[in-house]
Structures are given as structure tokens and as C-alpha cells.
């Protein structure tokens, strides 16, 4: 393990921590809404990771203006990609919540262990 590099890539480390946190919530938490929150935390961690990849130390926003050299601008591609990612995350969350509404209507609870009898949906 390259500990110097890990200490330097601190954003990446925090996004890994967030990712694990979200995965834990999805896998273990019994409440369905908390599971969906876990999904969102995981997604956010990936967005943080992608934006950090495109970062340039003391860089500028990638908007062409006078006096700003292209070499000092941050990479625009990850930002465009995470815009897609955010929309995908919103869409998945909307579908998940509408399924939750239906589940609550039928079962009267959002507790995964009660709905499934044993364990969560995993």
C-alpha cells in the first residue's frame, strides 16, 4: 500500500468511506427509506470521486474567458458525466420511493424484516 499517495488523495479516501457507509446502510438497515438513503450516499460518494479526478490544483472553472489559459482549467468531462449520474440517481430514487408508497399501502410498515419475514431484501 502506498500510504503517502493515500494521504495525498484524501478526497478519494473520503469517497471510499462514504461508499462503504452507504453500502452498509443498504445491506443492514431494516427501514426501506434508510436503504434508499444509503443508495443516495453511495451515489454521492461516486460523484465526489469523479469530480475529484477532474480537479486541477488552484484551477479555474471550464468556462472560456479572457486571460484564463485552458491548461489551468479543470477537466470538464467528469462534471458532465456526474450531471448524468445525478439525474440517474434522482430517477432511481423517485421509482424507489413510489414503490415504498405502494408497499406502505399494502403492508402498513416500511420495516424490511417485517415485510419479508426474515432478513432484509439482501
Amino acid at each position: 500500500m502506498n500510504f503517502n499517495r493515500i494521504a495525498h488523495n484524501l478526497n478519494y479516501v473520503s469517497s471510499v468511506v462514504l461508499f462503504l457507509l452507504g453500502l452498509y446502510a443498504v445491506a443492514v438497515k431494516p427501514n426501506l427509506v434508510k436503504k434508499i438513503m444509503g443508495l443516495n450516499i453511495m451515489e454521492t460518494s461516486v460523484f465526489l470521486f469523479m469530480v475529484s479526478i477532474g480537479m486541477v490544483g488552484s484551477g479555474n472553472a471550464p468556462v472560456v474567458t479572457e486571460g484564463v489559459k485552458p491548461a489551468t482549467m479543470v477537466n470538464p468531462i467528469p462534471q458532465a458525466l456526474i450531471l448524468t449520474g445525478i439525474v440517474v440517481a434522482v430517477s432511481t430514487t423517485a421509482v424507489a420511493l413510489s414503490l415504498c408508497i405502494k408497499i406502505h399501502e399494502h403492508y402498513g410498515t416500511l420495516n424490511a424484516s417485517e415485510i419479508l419475514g426474515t432478513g432484509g431484501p439482501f
Partner: protein
Amino acid sequence: MRKAIVVLALVGIGVMLIYAVGEMPPMGDSGNPDKVHIAPRYLEHGEEEAGASNVITAVILNYRGYDTMGEVAVIFCALCAVVAILNREKPGLSRTSMDVSGVKASVVVRTTIRFLVPVIIFFAVYIILHGESTPGGGFQGGAIIGASIILFTLAFGLPESTRKLPLRFRIPLESFAVIAFLAAGFTGIVFGVHFLTYLMPGLSEYAAETIRHIMMMVIEIGIGFAGGIIFTSIMFAMIREDQCELQPDSP
């Protein structure tokens, strides 16, 4: 027991990811692989090639426009999913628990919102139209439009909102973003160039650039308004379902 297995698996994944992070190129270095391969061309030629001084907009609409078409298809798909699961068009459900609770929003709130909503929508239109040269664009503006309509609904109730935005008006607008993208793409096919090409051949430079500008504008406006209406429709579909649990017991 289950928890222990999950934690063990998470530790395994975590060690793997941290190891990978340690092997990644140093963050923020301008010599990293992602900054020397494709991005320089976008940054240097984005404005004249793709017609937007905000390079992110150039990437979204032009270089990777096909991804964005998929993206608007994703929100359209989510809308269809929500309204199909919750059965939006089932007649007889136009109220929410909020409407039947008997507690109305106060006059102060209603008046403030009546003044605020047009201003918010105006700001959203600014964000949409200036996406080419400043941070912003269709999705951001669409989110603001959606938020303003949601604010209106919270104060005035669902019947009032659905009266202002009836279904026969929302349904065509919901698919407008996908249609705008496809129309731009098929225009290219009519002119005999690749799908989603904005600069049409066989025209003078001025005419070609004007057409490109108009097409990008139409797409941005389409994304913005369709996005806003889709968020609104999702919200309408979700809150009207409350009716099923809460029987009207108006005082």
C-alpha cells in the same frame, strides 16, 4: 450474524478500494492521464467547435450529446415508472391529506408565494438560457422550475395546481425533451450528416452557426421545461396517493 458477514465483506471491499486509491495518480496534478488525453482538445477548441463558451455545456450538448439524450430518456422513464406504479390517471383522486386536513396555509404564506413563484421561474429561465456561457443549463433550470411549482402546490393545494397545470397540458410537455433531442438529431439525418451534428453542411457560415445556436437553445429549453414538469408530475403522483389512507374528515 448477517451483520457480521456484511461487515466482513465491507472490510474486504474497503481494503481493495483504499489500495486502489493509493495507486491512483496524485489528485490535482495537471499531468494526470485524464487531463492529457481528451480534455485539452475540449478546453482549447470547445468554443469554436461546439459553439458554447461553457465547455461543460459543450460536452453535454455536443461532444457527448448522445449521453444527454439517454439522460433525458432516464427521467422520462422514471416519470412513466412512477405514474404507472401509482396510477396517476385513475379518476377520482385529486386531493391529498393536506387538502382535506382543513388547515390552510396562512394568508402571509400564500401572498408571499404568489409573488415569489414568478420571480423564481424568471430566474430559472435565466439559468436555462445562459447555460451556454455561464454555469447552469437545462437540468439546473428545470430543477428550479419544478421546485417553484412544488412550492405553489404546498401553499395552494393539489386541486388548484392541477387546475393550473392540467394533465392534457403536462403529458406533451413531459416528453418534449426527448422529442427536442430527437428532432435535432433527425435534422442532421435530413441534411445527410451524422445524428446530433449541429453544424449543417451546404450553408453559409453565418446561417450554419445561427441554426446551431437555435438548435442548442431549443434543446436547453426542452430539457429545462420538460425536466421541471416531470419533477412536478412525479410529485403530484406521489402526494395524491395519500388519499388512500386518509379518509376525508373535514371539520
